[in-house]
């Protein structure tokens, strides 16, 4: 089951930038694109765990600050030729409020 949690307003996140949501099981990076879409990924690069929230956001992608893996914001997949995937979380924006969807632990699919 997805549980929706309010995490802040759209204006709290810089355009083409990112903010971090801290959780007990690690940080989640929340990104905002140039057309105000919001995406959330685990703040860990599939390469060597670099903090994706610190990367440069372009189109619907972010470049990891450590070794330049480029990650799709929507799916968390590394853009070819790189390989790897980081977990993506559902988000929604309603009336300028950003919501993060989290899975109840038991239902996290073991992909």
């Amino acid at each position, binding site marked *: 089951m997805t549980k929706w*949690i309010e*995490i*802040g307003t759209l204006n*709290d*996140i*810089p*355009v*083409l*930038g990112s*903010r*971090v*949501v*801290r*959780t*007990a*099981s690690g*940080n989640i990076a*929340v990104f905002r694109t*140039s057309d105000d879409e919001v995406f959330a990924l685990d703040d860990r690069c599939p390469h*060597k*765990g*670099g*903090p994706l929230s*610190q*990367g*440069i*956001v*372009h*189109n619907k*992608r972010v*470049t990891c*600050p*450590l*070794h*330049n893996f*480029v990650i799709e914001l929507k799916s968390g997949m590394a853009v070819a*030729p*790189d390989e790897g995937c980081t977990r993506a979380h559902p988000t929604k924006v309603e009336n300028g409020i950003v919501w*993060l969807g*989290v899975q109840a*632990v038991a239902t996290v699919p073991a992909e």
Partner: protein
Amino acid sequence: MLDKVNKPKLVVIGNGMAGIRTVEVLLDRAPDLYDITVFGSEPYGNYNRILLSPVLAGEKTVDDIMLNTEQWYEDNGITLRKGEMIEMIDRRTCEVVTAEGARVPYDRLLIATGSNPIMLPLPGKDLPGVIGFRDIQDVEHMVKASTSYKNAVVIGGGLLGLEAANGLMKRGMNVTVVHLLDTLMERQLDQVAGGLLRKSLEERGMVFKMPAQTEAILGTDRVTGVRFADGEEIPADLVVMAVGIRPNVELARKAGLYCERGIVVSDTMQTYDGRIYAVGECVQHRRQTYGLVAPLFDQAKVCANHLAMKGFATYDGSVVSTKLKVTGIDLFSAGDFAPGADKEEIVMQDASRGVYKRIILRDKRIVGAVLYGDTVDGPWYFQHLRDGTDVSHMRERLVFGAANLGDGGHSGKNSVAAMSDDTEICGCNGVCKGTIVKAISEKKLFTIDDVRAHTKASSSCGSCTGLVEQVLAFTLGGDYSAAPKVKPICACTDHSHDDARRVIVENGLKTIPDVMKFMDWKTANGCHSCRPALNYYLLATWPGEYRDDQQSRYINERVHANIQKDGTYSVVPRMWGGVTTPDELRAIADVADKFNIPTVKVTGGQRIDLLGVKKEDLPAVWADLNKAGMVSGHAYAKGLRTVKTCVGSEWCRFGTQDSTGLGIKLEKFMWGSWTPAKVKLAVSGCPRNCAEATCKDVGVVCVDSGYEIHFAGAAGLHIKGTEFLTKVATEEETLEIIAALTQLYREQGWYLERMYKWCDRVGLDAIRKQVVDDVANRKALFSRFAHSQQFSQSDPWAARAERGVDRNEFTPLAELELA
């Protein structure tokens, strides 16, 4: 842009390797200067003549070896008149005349007509089936012959002859190689190596008749055989003459240009008529003619620079090396290996491995090398040969090559071949040679960008780019590296760095989206490569006006600290000229204690690094450092980093000037400036040079009578001593020149291009002229530098610690209680 009519006209005769390389370099240096017309008697675009041998051997196709498509000529506004032969140069009217009689005027003319194969004046030489080995047509002829005929004779046992023979053999013909002397490739090989080569070619089925002199080519309608001076006759359906080449100077000679063996040119590649240049195999420079591409490309570069009216590069001649392109045979030769009383030799022969190496030394230096069977060290020996390195300290192990000298390859490109597969090439990303080689061959990579994308090598600090390029060249084979095309900034655009810089200035573009729109960017918001570059160009072009775009800054510059592998940061406060005080040290110690900073380390730039600071602690750490009077050291910036100094005349018994004081003045004047890449300075108080000023971006060495200013050094993966710029008498002049130099670099450098690379690209003389010789220009550069400093000298730490700038950056958006 000037329209075609008003541009001076450059006519190029010869659509071959040297001519087109010159045009390519010219387009790179001065894209819009000339209206260019190229005449080529061959009916194709420019192709890689070297690779005709693999085409003949069936290892490549004609399409594989095309270098420039017709589209390329069109895209660059060049008129290509292929299949048209120039018959005459009319120097009186400055026109060239084609075989059909058309006249085309020129303002500058480039002759690049290459050479012709020498056809021995034997009876029967004009019979069908007797050809040279020079162009695509010859190859097509040979391939066709191989399908309907059996016996081929190649006259000439040199490089070209053996490659022809090998190709014909691969095509299924019986091949006999006829050679006048008793050693194959006698110009490149000694007797032993020549013998080894002969043996392994014989094992493959090649037949040799040598020493032997050909007396006649037999046949009536077509060649049927060859007769030798000893009376022997052998059957032949195809005869390839590969006995040498003759520079193609006919056209030049008829036009009254001074020719000897080749067209005689000066060090700037000009003929006796200053409007007429010549490059390539048709040229004779300082008594020397060349028949390999490497020296021709050197000539092309000099010629293009001169045509572009940039720089004062001169061509000083080349030393050449040779490899034989017969798959499975490794052979390398360079320099002079004829025996002589003043020479020493080191010879190694390992018959079981089929390896032979002979290194010839004179006066402690390598003057020649012949390698057979194991040629990985060829380029390494060649480098020492060209550099004239004193090799006496490694004499005993010399013959075993670079890999046995404990040189991990960091001395640069020439050890690449000798590296084992597990040698790390890219230190940043831990990528080994084997990985790169594998990616190149399996994924068919051809450019450095491909390699970057697939392996990560050279994608971070980029200092291993040269090495990766070498691996690329080495893996792809061929004796030269592919032509440098105008390089786009990244995959988001077709435009180069220079294009972007020019367009920004010319069109008064002031934001990143404006630039992208104007230049038809292919992506909506660019990427991590182009956005920071554009941001820098705008910042450098419009100081005080352009608002720095934080989201186009690499994280370190956005948060003014250096990200570490675990996502924490390091903090380096400025220590002016490397001088600190007990109070500052106490404050640093207190900060380290208060914030549990795990590592405190002295840096190479004479300051202190606090490593492992959590991001959210950064503003508080800075506040404490600010309180003690310290500001950001910009240790993360593409900007002024450190000014290293020695204690100079204040303390040192050798000191000639106050080097510490000058260093502090420089740092106080220049801190905060953004540059294309990092800039490090140093000031030494005397030529003992304790501050290591001669490997910095800019270094000052004090002497009794003043200050020597050096620049364009490097001491990272590349090590390069500085170039001497000038010497001045006062501190004021020193400061003015260094600021002017830095400003010129800020205005011309490509983003991430270090000062030494910029200097390489635009030329030392051009720089010296602008910042030293032309005083008015220097003052103008200086005042532009001073102007932009007004806007950049505010401490980014204070802004964030006290005024809460970018507070968002340092606090989480939310904290969730999740399982």
